[in-house]
């Protein structure tokens, strides 16, 4: 996991769209990951309320879920071979608008992996994880390094 800690920030920094949104790496552990999406006027989805667009929440949930999936399958052997995951399906429930001006925190847990698929749940909130902005459930395809099963 030490290597994962060292590499995880690159999973955020190396993603142009995440970087453009200002998504920050917070933490990673076995099968778990947390990221932050700072408030920004450029991602407003409703000018009347200045609430950020659901699409920005979708992106941070997708990205943090992907990192949690990688953190669930990574081993000493495959970490440098860039074993990858690709989103297959993402379901999101929006509970309430994110508070304008507040950073959105997204935390994901990959609770099951099979040979081909990783199953991940995630939550987005703006300070209190008992009062979520959105929750998601995602599945990822696991592509094994070198294309071999």
């Amino acid at each position, binding site marked *: 996991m030490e290597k994962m800690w060292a590499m995880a920030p690159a999973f955020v920094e*190396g*993603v*142009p*769209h*995440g*970087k*453009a949104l200002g998504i920050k790496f917070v933490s990673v552990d076995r099968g778990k990951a947390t990221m932050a999406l700072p408030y920004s*006027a*450029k*991602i*407003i*989805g*409703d*000018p*009347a309320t200045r609430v*950020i*667009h*659901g*699409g*920005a929440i*979708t*992106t*941070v*949930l*997708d*990205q943090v879920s*992907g990192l949690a999936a990688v953190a669930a399958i990574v081993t000493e052997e495959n970490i440098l071979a*860039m074993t*990858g995951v*690709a*989103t*297959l*399906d*993402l*379901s*999101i*429930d*929006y509970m309430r*608008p994110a508070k304008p001006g507040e950073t959105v925190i997204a935390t994901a847990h990959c609770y099951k992996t099979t040979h081909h698929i990783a199953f991940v749940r995630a939550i987005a909130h703006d300070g209190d994880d008992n009062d979520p902005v959105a929750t998601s459930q995602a599945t990822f395809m696991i592509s094994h390094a070198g294309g071999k099963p």
Partner: protein
Amino acid sequence: MTGAEIVRVLGKLPYASFINVEPILMDEELTMVMRYQEKNIGNPFLPALHGGAIGGFLEVSAIAGLMFSGDYTKVPKPIGLNIGYLRRGKPQDCFARTNIVRQGSRIANVRVEAWQDDMDNPVAVLMGNFLTADYKG
């Protein structure tokens, strides 16, 4: 809402400009396009568009499609949605069209398909419910 109003509303939507989305109007049909830009990339090695950018594009398209279909004073809010990723989003323009499956008095159910080269081979599909409480025919 008319086509010209959709253009005006989207122009005032920072997130739509951020991911580079604009409407294309042909008579009574609304098609949305997300023009390719480097900052929509999720994986620079493949390369592939970010699943979140595609998801955001589908959401913007759903909202625009709903607003185009009736009179809204507020932006429809997503409640629950599911995005299926069918193939890699290539680094090029992406198109989308919204089909309103049901417009109720408070909730609208929509299906949005996004494609690149071929409309019959979508890259992603969204199914979702939106809160449209202020909808007036």
